């Protein structure tokens, strides 16, 4: 019976395969269409966009829109381009991702290998934090930041994102370390390694896949966050807020080519992170779910 169905699978294989690829190709094209439109139009002079076909390739290729978006475009009241805000975002996202990932890893380590009374409750509450919408915490968060004197600063934003991210990073690391054999920790204890030594020498070296997941997740979320940036950014607003100010400006001519270039600039870092670390992403997400 099974041999028979295998036979038919082989004989129709070619056509089925071709069909599958065709469908996949169509989906891919559809999916890439927005990127194509953005890319093409960011390389045109404005006149070509307002006067002509949005789908057509540029007649005059120019990087003027990119230059403008990066360094001279009017953001709010200053003609600074996106550059300083890009820097703000980097200054915010790197420490926030690093700190939340490290804290998440330590939490996961403690919650699985140094279990204590009520640890499942602690984990449950941390998990709960993943389900709290951003908007709910805006006012309490503003009060806390004000009391700490961190309102409207990059460290303030880092704190907000770390606090918000710990729930997710803890979830990732806890589930990853839950599949990690406890006997190894016990063996290391007998060998004389302490709490941090076991973490550093035994667990961390094998945490690569899940660290990548955590970094991608945190990087994407923090980089793309608009609400916290707009609410608590003050004078050091991140890229997303600046992009909004660029695109939503109600005065002057709408420079679509500059807007497109700016949007691509804003999306570039996350795209880069995915391309560099993407193949670990799926592997890490699957880790622990299947034994072996």
């Amino acid at each position, binding site marked *: 019976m099974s041999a028979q169905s295998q036979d038919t699978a082989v004989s129709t294989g070619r056509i089925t395969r071709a069909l599958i690829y065709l469908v996949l190709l169509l989906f891919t094209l559809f999916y890439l269409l927005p990127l194509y439109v953005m890319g093409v139009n960011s390389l045109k002079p404005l006149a070509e966009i307002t006067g002509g076909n949005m789908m057509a390739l540029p007649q005059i290729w120019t990087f003027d829109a990119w230059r403008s978006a990066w360094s001279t475009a009017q953001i709010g009241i200053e003609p600074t381009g996106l550059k300083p805000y890009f820097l703000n975002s980097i200054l915010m996202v790197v420490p926030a991702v690093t700190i939340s990932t490290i804290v998440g890893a330590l939490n996961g380590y403690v919650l699985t290998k140094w279990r204590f009374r009520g640890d499942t409750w602690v984990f449950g509450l941390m998990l709960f934090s993943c389900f709290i919408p951003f908007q709910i915490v805006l006012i309490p968060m503003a009060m806390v930041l004000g009391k700490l004197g961190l309102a409207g600063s990059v460290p303030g934003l880092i704190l907000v994102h770390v606090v918000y991210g710990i729930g997710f990073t803890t979830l990732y690391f806890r589930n990853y370390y839950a599949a990690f054999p406890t006997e190894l920790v016990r063996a290391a204890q007998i060998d004389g390694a302490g709490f941090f030594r076991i973490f550093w*020498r035994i667990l961390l070296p*094998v945490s690569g896949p899940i660290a990548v997941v955590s970094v991608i997740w945190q990087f994407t979320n923090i980089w793309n966050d608009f609400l916290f940036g707009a609410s608590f950014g003050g004078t050091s607003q991140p890229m997303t807020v600046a992009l909004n100010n660029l695109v939503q400006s109600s005065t002057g001519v709408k420079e679509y080519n500059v807007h497109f270039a700016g949007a691509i600039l804003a999306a570039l870092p996350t795209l880069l992170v995915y391309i560099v670390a993407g193949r670990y992403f799926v592997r890490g997400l699957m880790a622990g779910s299947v034994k072996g």
Partner: protein
Amino acid sequence: MGFLDIRNVTKSYGAVEVLHRVDIAVEEGEFLVLVGPSGCGKSTLLNMIAGLENISGGEIAIKGRVINGVHPSKRNIAMVFQSYALYPNMTVGQNMTFGLEMHGVPKPERDKALAEVSKLLQIDHLLDRKPGQLSGGQRQRVAMGRALVRDPDVFLFDEPLSNLDAKLRVDMRTEIKKLHQKLRTTIVYVTHDQIEAMTLSTRIAVMNKGYVQQLGTPKEIYDTPANVFVATFMGSPAMNIVPATVRLREGVPHAELTDSEGQTRHLRFSQPGLAAWDGRDILLGIRPEAITDPEGADRKSGNIQALPNRVGVTEPAGSDTFVTMSLSGRDIISRMRADVNVQPGQMFDFAVNMEKAVAFDPKTEERIAP
């Protein structure tokens, strides 16, 4: 006072006591095996010696030093885990010297110890490999090497062979025994496999439901089991247990049984002490190898009793043939020579070596004779 003293040790989780007043004194160089079915508390006891579980009551001492509350790394013990617990990111060499490194032993000394032990275990060509690149048997050796390198007072083995395939398990068993004979180290070894327990140990503690049922040499455990549990747990196939009645005939105690045809049979006991049980019910325990064909019976035995009975099933196993019959409503297994000529359904003269028979009290299930 022994080398490793386990005095009145109990373990409880909340109100539930899982290990009751265990009292074992292990001499230096002894190979103590803790054996029992899963959940009997043997691994818990081992973990308490290792310091991975705290001791609820009583005390454990190594070389006279009480180690309750002492950190595992300061007890001078080494443990081989069931999963081997090799650090996956380190090479074999790093795995084996990690403990020494953590104890601040300088590198030249570490390398020396590593060279010695890896040579002893014949893993010196594997030192640069990662555990993932090793076979099961090699991992097992590395795990033992990691324990040996530290030259501890007591070695703890937690079911180290249960992850190996049958053939390798037998090889490694011999290997461990050789190693013990050579190094004369003190070992506490946990297993649920009674053959491992019999072959490896100098003494066995048979455990069940948190109690040590019997502590003794393999021979004591096998020949004079303390109770029905030990009798049936140790030995494969298990000891046959049949309800019987003690009858005095001409002043000598006999076991009265019913054969498969409904006939009453009498087997003479070698233990005159059983005369006190005249007329009372007992449980008669006979090992399969004590029931044979007349030619295969132990010539040195002074009490071979003939027992004609109908053959149930024959199971040729290569080296032996197992023949079953029915006695007093129970299936009895006998172990005979491989080439014995027995057909299912025929009447056959079984020869029972009553010198090896054990009698148990049917109520308490404790041994009453010998």
